[in-house]
Structures are given as C-alpha cells and as structure tokens.
C-alpha cells in the first residue's frame, strides 16, 4: 500500500508540474489570440440578449455577418459557427446558448460535407477550436473524452502547446493583435479574394472529382438532436447552404445527392431549406473573380451580400411571397442553365 501511495504521489507531482508548464505555454494563446476563446467571453457578456442564432462550420463563419442581419431584420443575432466545427460541437454550443438566451430562430448552415465529415478524415483541429470555446470544465472534459481518441492526446497537446509558444513568440515581437469578436458577434470575415476559374474551364472540369457520400451516423445523430432541441423549445429552424464558387459546383459530382438528404430533412422536420447555390442570379450576386476567398468561402464584401440576400428571402417568406421561384430545382439544372445564360 505504501508503494502504491508513493507511485500515485510521484505520478501526480509530475503531472502537476507538467500541467503548470503547459498552462503557462498555452495561456497567451487562449487569452490573447484565439478568437474561439474570445468568442466564449463575448457570448457570456451577451447572454440574455440574443434571439437569432446562426450555427455552422467555416462556410457559415465566413458568410453570415450578424451586424448586417441585425440592421435588416431588427433582431439581435450571433454567428456561432467555427472552423471545422463538428456536429457534436454545434449541438453543445446551441444547447448552451438556447439555455441562456431568448432564442426564437436558429439557422443551421449545412455545407456539402456537414453529414459526411469524420474525425478520421479531418483530424482534431475542429476539436481544438471547439474546446477553446467551452468554459464549463465538466462539459469540456466530457466533450474531450467523447470526441478525441486517446491515440491523439499527445498530438493534440503538442498542437495546442505549439500554438501557445507561437503566441509567446509573437508577443515577444509585438505582433499579437486582439480578435474582433466584440464588433462582429462571431463572424470572422475573409479579407482577401482569390479569382476563381472562369466559365471557359467549367465544361472541362465537369465532375472530375466526387464528393464523399457516406453519411456519418454521429453527425446525423447530433443534427437530429439539434432539431429536437429547437422543436422542444419551440424555436424556428431554417436550414441554409452558403454559396460555393461556380467552378467548385462543376468539379464535384454528388451535390444533388447531398441536396436530396437536406430536402428530406427539411420535409421531415418542417423547416425551410435555402440553398444559395441554386440561386438563379448567383453568378451576378457572387462573381467568380472577386466573390470568394477560395473555392468554398465568401470574401468579406460578398458575405455582406449573402447576409442581405438571406434576410430578404426570410422577409419574403414571412410576408407569404413565393421564394421558390428564385431558385433552380437541382444543381445540374442550375449550373447548366447559368452557363447557358452567361454564354448568351
């Protein structure tokens, strides 16, 4: 027994010293640089005031500007999206915010890989960000243990410590800039744009790659949990797909299959679905040359355009106008029709 006690005490001593070192290393990253940690602080300060939530992964994070939405709809909105945010992470965030805010509308952003992305395929990066946004130690531990497999504990600690050391280095050089969540309410804009391939390349690249089409059971489970949570709290849910560059739509095969899943979800749960890739005037609204940061993320100026478009569609729908006429029915129809239109 004495041996056992000494083993435990010595192991705990090493663990404690190690935790102090790791804590010191990562402290500046979370407190000064990580916008996920800052986001957590902002949300805490705004608790009790938010009535409109937008939740998704990086496509949503870069597309929905709550300041524009608030001006258009007169609501108090917050963009809860995060880069590589997992569906499990979205559920936990939504649960927390719905508890402490008078939420009446939740917009769930569904990108093409929202249901198919897995830990095996994308790694732990999304979890690092998500863990940075959690302030409840019990929830933090619960999420960590359920989302990260033990084989990656060391790599994940290494990754986090490396971020911390990098922030120390940037502090030393005076390069640390505070995050902007206070002004943007969760929205993180892409400041630059990258010209996307023009229509001359569309036909050549048509369906040269295929989307991953295996639905991950866990993603589906947490999406349904989100929908159930909203239904139980009598919160209106809207499903939305943000615009991708037109060239991306031509390259990948499988968008219509994904659209089919989301339509089924929309019908089953009775919540409207707006897929902005089916928008008839998409090419004019989100031009290929300046509209995108990369193939799937909107540039800041066009994020504002998207937010305006989205608000307008909501207002039209609320006033009973037919919004379906603004959209094509399928991706295949949309891309070919838009190409024909552009060529004319």
């Amino acid at each position, binding site marked *: 027994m*004495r*041996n056992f006690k*000494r*083993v435990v*005490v*010595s192991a705990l*001593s*090493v*663990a*404690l*010293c*190690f935790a*102090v*070192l*790791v804590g010191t*290393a990562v402290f500046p990253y979370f407190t000064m640089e990580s916008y996920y940690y800052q986001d957590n602080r902002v949300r805490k300060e705004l608790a009790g005031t938010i009535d409109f939530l937008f939740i998704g992964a990086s496509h949503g994070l870069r597309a929905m500007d709550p300041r524009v939405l608030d001006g258009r709809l007169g609501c108090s909105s917050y963009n809860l999206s995060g880069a590589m945010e997992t569906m499990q992470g979205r559920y936990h965030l939504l649960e927390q915010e719905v508890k402490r805010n008078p939420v009446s509308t939740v917009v769930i952003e569904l990108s093409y890989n929202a249901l198919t992305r897995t830990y095996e395929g994308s790694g732990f990066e999304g979890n690092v960000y998500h863990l940075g946004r959690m302030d409840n130690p019990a929830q933090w531990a619960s999420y960590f243990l359920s989302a990260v497999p*033990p*084989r990656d*504990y*060391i*790599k994940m*600690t*290494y990754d986090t*410590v*490396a971020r911390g*050391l990098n922030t120390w280095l940037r502090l030393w050089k005076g390069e640390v800039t505070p995050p902007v969540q206070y002004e943007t309410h969760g929205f993180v804009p892409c400041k630059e744009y990258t010209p996307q391939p023009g229509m001359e390349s569309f036909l050549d690249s048509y369906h040269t790659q295929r989307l991953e089409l295996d639905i991950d059971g866990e993603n589906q489970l947490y999406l349904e949990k989100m929908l159930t949570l909203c239904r139980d709290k009598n919160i209106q849910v809207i499903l939305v797909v943000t615009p991708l560059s037109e060239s991306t739509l031509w390259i990948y095969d499988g968008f219509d299959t994904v659209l089919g899943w989301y339509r089924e979800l929309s019908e089953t749960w009775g919540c409207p679905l707006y897929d902005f890739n089916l928008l008839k005037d998409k090419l004019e609204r989100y031009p290929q040359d300046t509209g995108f940061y990369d193939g799937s993320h909107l540039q800041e100026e066009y994020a504002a355009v998207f937010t305006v478009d989205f608000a307008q569609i909501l207002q039209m729908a609320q006033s009973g106008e037919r919004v379906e006429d603004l959209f094509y029915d399928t991706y295949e129809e949309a891309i070919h029709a838009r190409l024909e239109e552009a060529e004319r």
Partner: protein
Amino acid sequence: MNFILFVLALTVLYYLVPKKAQWMVLLLASAGFYCAAGLRAAIYIVITAASTYAATLAMGRVTQYQKQYLAAGGELTKEQKAEFKKRNTLRKRWIMVAALVLNFGFLCVFKYFHFALAQVNHVIAALGGAQIEDTFQLIVPLGISFYTFQTMGYLVDVYWGKVEPQKNFAKLLLFVSFFPQITQGPISSYSQLADQLYAPHSFTYENYAWGCQRMFWGFFKKLALANVLAPWVQAVFDNYAEYGAPAVLMGIFFYSMQIYADFSGYMDIMCGLCQVLDIRLTENFERPYFSKSIAEYWRRWHISLGAWFKNYIYYPIAISKWNKKIGKWSQKKLGRTFGRALPASIALVAVWLTTGLWHGASWGYIAWGGVNGLFIIFSLWMEPVYGAVRDKLGVRENDRWFRVFQVVRTFILVSFIKVLPEAGGLRRGLGLWKQALTAWTLPHSWGDLFPYDISRGNLAVVCLGLLMLLAVSLLQRSGPVRERFNRVPMLPRAAVLAAMLFLMLCFGVPASGNVGGFMYAQF
C-alpha cells in the same frame, strides 16, 4: 501513446497475477507485441525456438546418457571412456551444427538473398551471361538478427555445458521472444536473463521510480535529439556534394549524436521498462564516446553484440588448434610481439567481417566492418611502436591531456567510420569523406554550417540535449546518476521530469514517416 498504454496494462497485470504466472504474462505480451508486427513473421521465431528446443533437449539427453553410462560402467578403461565421450561430443556437435545451419540459414536467406543474387548477377554480367531475375519478395521478420544470435548463443552454451537445456518450451519461447529486446537487443545470454524471466517478482517503488526515470531519459534522447537530428543528417547525406566541408563535418557529428541518442535511447526505454518489472537487462552502452581507442569503443558500444562475437567467434577461432599452430609458426618467423598478434588478428578479421555483414547486406557495411577491424589490428601490431614514441616524447599514458587527445581522436575516427555505409552506399560514403576532407572553406555564415532547413528553437533544444548528455556521461564516472537524482526532494525531481516531458512534447519529433523508427531495428 499505444506503447505507453501497453506498458501500463502490462505492468498492472504483471503484478496482479500470482507470481508463478508472471512469466506467462510476459510471454503473452511478447506474443502480442510480435504478432502486431505481422503474423507471418511469428512463424519464423517459433521455428527458431522449436528447433533450438529440440536440439538442446537432444544434446541434454546425450549428456544425461553419457553421465549415467559412465557412472554405471565402472569397469571401462580410460581409453574406452575417452572414446565414448568423443563419440557423444561428436553427436552433440552434429545436433548443434544442424540447428545452427537451419537458423543461420533463415537469417542468411532473409537478410542476404537479394545482396547475394545481385553479386551473382554482377559476375554473370561480366561473363556476358543472362541475368537471374530477382522477383522474390522477402519480408525480413522483425528482430531476426537479434533473436537468432541470442538463441544460437543459448544453443552453443548448452553444447558447451554452460547451461542446462530448458525443458519447458513456453519458457524457452519467452527467452527467445522477450519483447523489450526483440527489435534492437540487447543480446542477452541465457544465464543472465532466463532465471530473471521465470522468477517471481514483487513491486517496489524504487524499481518503479528508477525504471520510469530511465524511460523518460530514453524518450527524451529519442524524441528531442535523435528524431530532431534525423532530417538534418539526411539532408547532408543526400546533398553532401553541394555542401562545403564545415556543413559535411557538422552532418557527420550530428549523425554520431543521432545514432547514439537513438540506440541508447531505445536501450534506456527498454531497460527502464524491465526495471519496472524487476528485470535487469544487460547494459549495452558504457559512455562509448569517451573511449580512448577503437577497440575500447567497441567494448563500450553495443556491448552485448561485442560480447556475443567475442564468446562465439573470437575465442573459438583464437584458441582453435589450427590458429595456435599459426601462432607458434609466426612467433618463430616474426618474433614474439608480431607472432602473438597474428592469431588474434585472424580472429579479429573474422569477427569484423561478420560484424559488418550482421549490420547489413551491402559492400558499405562490409567495408565499414573491414575499416574497424583494420584500425584495431593496426593498433594491435603498432602497440610497441606507440609505446616507444610515447616514451621518446615523455608522454605518460595516464596524463589527463593525453587521455583527452585519445578520446577526441577516437571520437573523430569512429564518427568518420560510422557514416561510411549510411550515405547511400560505399561510393557515396567515400564521396562524403572526400568532401569533408577536401572542400574546405571557413564558415562565414549560418548557412555555411547548416545549408538546410533548420529551426533555431530545435537547434537550441539539440544543444541543450547534448549538454545534458555530456553532463550525465561525466557524472556517470562517479556512480549512477539516478542514485543522486533520487536523493533530491520529490517536487524538484518531478519538475525536472515534467520539464523533460515538456521539451519532448514541444520540440521532439514524434514517430512518423522516415524519422520515427529506431535506427537499429533495421539491422
């Protein structure tokens, strides 16, 4: 991470089961460890164990029969007894040779087949014949060099009557496949290891603490030194022709440090693990870079391999009748000093060619073994000359500065010899030597010393690690470092270990791609 979890589970299970069954836990762990590397490879280790088991039992039966026969047959004459013993020795020898041929045959086929076929093709090509296509896919079983040598050592020991044959096959299988030493040694003798494996062990805090500290040190050497140095060394080996001598020399120095940190790091991890299990493995290193001659260096580097070659190749050749005859002849013809050195040199040539071949099937390794042997034999022959020169210069052998000179000289020599087979073949190894010795310009900038991608943070950690290595080596001269370390209060001790863990985590390169694996596992 998987390894740490495996070790944790093993330790808990090992001390929870009844003491009589502890060796079975080790056997199960070894089987699991080995099978994880591929089930097919496990067949060969079982064949080695089974053939050795059968051969040693058969030799044991011959010995037993001989004892009983001689005890019962009191009326036999001295000549009859000698004849009977001779016949039995011959029988045992045939059994041993059969087992040796089978097991070394496996080793040769797996390690040297492709090399041998390539040489045959060279000869055929020179004669203008058609080439033999090398379409055979041979996957070398994990640790075959190590377990074959260890098992054959046991076989020969049984033949010599040094140890009794093990009658329990499972216990012998554990000795052959004991997982901490299967991939990189040490090559333990049966008398040193077997009893420890089968004996009951109790958990003590001291073993746990000392063992864990040693594992920490081993992981630090591997992750924060060897793995960080690996890409820099590779850059020099790949591009030495474009680099100046300072950068190539730095690469040679880094390689010496890398291979030491890698190999001794592995040994520290495994010796530490065994200490937690209350088992002491043979030590494989004794501060080798502080050796005063190449011969001494090889007594302090990979000690268990050197001991194996000494016991099973060097001595049998050195004391063989034919070699003694050569010795007598040479003493008459060449005088006492050189006459004595000749039989030892013959044994050394055999040892060093085998050592070269053991390390790898290439001319580079054969040349590497040859150069090592050449230096040792040359020193042996020149010893009287060295003594005379020292006397003439008035240098005392135990003078501190002379010792420092010897250590530095030996380090430079072994560092140069080490890189010979590692730069991608003998020709490239010689090219690297040439570049290091001829492309001389004084380094004017950082880039002249490190003309490859190098982070200053990693370089700082490498310097810190090397300083720690040096400090530990110097402290080891006056006794075990861990003994002193464990006299320090718990909190500062924990802080040092946590700091090492932190450095490993931040700057250590985890096993991945061509950096991760242990270097000696390839042998």
